[in-house]
């Protein structure tokens, strides 16, 4: 049982109205504007996938808004092992690291020193963006 559920942290930023060139993307506007943190909110979600999915939905909702924007993070408890909170790439890196250590151990038996273990079960703080893969996309 996780100590806390996967939490969606939302930071709301606002800026003053400004002239926006027709067709200018929100991403470009975000680069040049002065943003002020207006408020934050936390939303407890069922699981990491739902957290990411909700975050992406929120980003899409704020896309046409010029005077405010959001930044979203999924906070995963350490017990949760999931492709989102502990994704495949990290799993692969951990596996590769373990293989490299084993190979080094075989080749340098006498001088080999066991490296310090890297913890991979720490809580995760996952930034969500418009290009973050949709966890339900492949499942559907």
């Amino acid at each position: 049982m996780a100590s806390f559920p996967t939490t969606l942290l939302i930071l709301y930023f606002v800026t003053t109205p400004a002239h926006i060139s027709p067709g200018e993307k929100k991403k470009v506007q975000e680069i040049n504007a002065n943003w002020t943190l207006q408020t934050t909110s936390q939303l407890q979600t069922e699981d990491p996938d739902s957290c990411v999915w909700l975050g992406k939905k929120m980003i899409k909702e704020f896309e046409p808004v010029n005077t405010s924007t959001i930044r979203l993070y999924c906070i995963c408890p350490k017990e949760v092992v999931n492709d989102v909170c502990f994704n495949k790439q990290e799993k692969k890196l951990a596996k590769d690291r373990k293989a490299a250590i084993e190979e080094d151990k075989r080749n340098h038996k006498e001088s080999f020193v066991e490296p310090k273990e890297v913890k991979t079960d720490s809580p995760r703080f996952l930034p969500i963006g418009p290009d973050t893969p949709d966890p339900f996309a492949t499942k559907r």
Partner: protein
Amino acid sequence: MLPAAAWAEASRLSDPNNTALCSIPATDSRKKLCDAPYSGGHSWGAAMACVARFATGIVCLLTGGCAILPDMPPDWALPVQEIVLHTACELQFALNALQPISDPKRFDPTAWTIKVTLNPKADADIQPGAGLTRRFPATGGTSFSNLVIGPGNGVTAEMKGSHYGSVDFKFDSGALMKDAGLPCDTAAPSYHTLTKHLGIQDWLFRAVDTTRVAGGSVDNPGFTADVFIKFNGTGSWTYTFPPGANLLTLSGYYQLEESLTITFTAKPVKDTFKVVTLPRGGKGFGPNYASPPPSTFSVLQDQSASLQQIRQQLQNLRIPTQ
């Protein structure tokens, strides 16, 4: 000018029976004003009718219909393009020459907003005058009366008009110094005085050199060049005959004043820094490098420049001497 028909109407109103001596034919104009027939039988009543007609004509003349509005000087008299180009070139030369020798704390040539104001003023004034003298009786007798209308050269009217213009040209001193595209190497074809050497560099150098010795810093330097041209003319016509004389005078002037005012206003020191006001966020978000929020400096600077111009114009006012 007052049309001849109006003169005729004025005559008709003042003397409906057309019995007075000061008849003015409708087809003729003012040259026959009070041109009395050569006769010795004038009475005081006839004289008063003549005065009334004369006064009517003058009142008509003064109603504003004959007021004049002088034209602004044409391009050959005020070559705006050449004057401003020459001024910009001289400013560029002066600032570039002063940069290596001036202490930036006392005078930084790159830290000014320069306004060049061209202010042409055209004034025109025409003063037509008319008068007459009459003797009663016209001939003979040991005693007679002399009627004189208008002192000196008679009754005069004044028609005066003015036409002023003003335009500001704004330069950033730093940008002006680096502007290699200014066609300063070509000689101006104009003979206009304002396209000649204005002496801006000499004036600035003296100011900068003074701060080097006396301390302080140069603040709001200014420069005004003024050209004044005046055309004056006077003419008169007198027709004398036994009963008296008819007088007509015409005088006027056209004056053109062109002033070139250069004002320096210190640019506000703005820090050019970038701030990050938004976290990077997840995949697909871009960075944030925001500029500082716009301040009111530019508005204040503009007001300051305008006040500086007004101050300089007030300083240039002269008390008219007799």
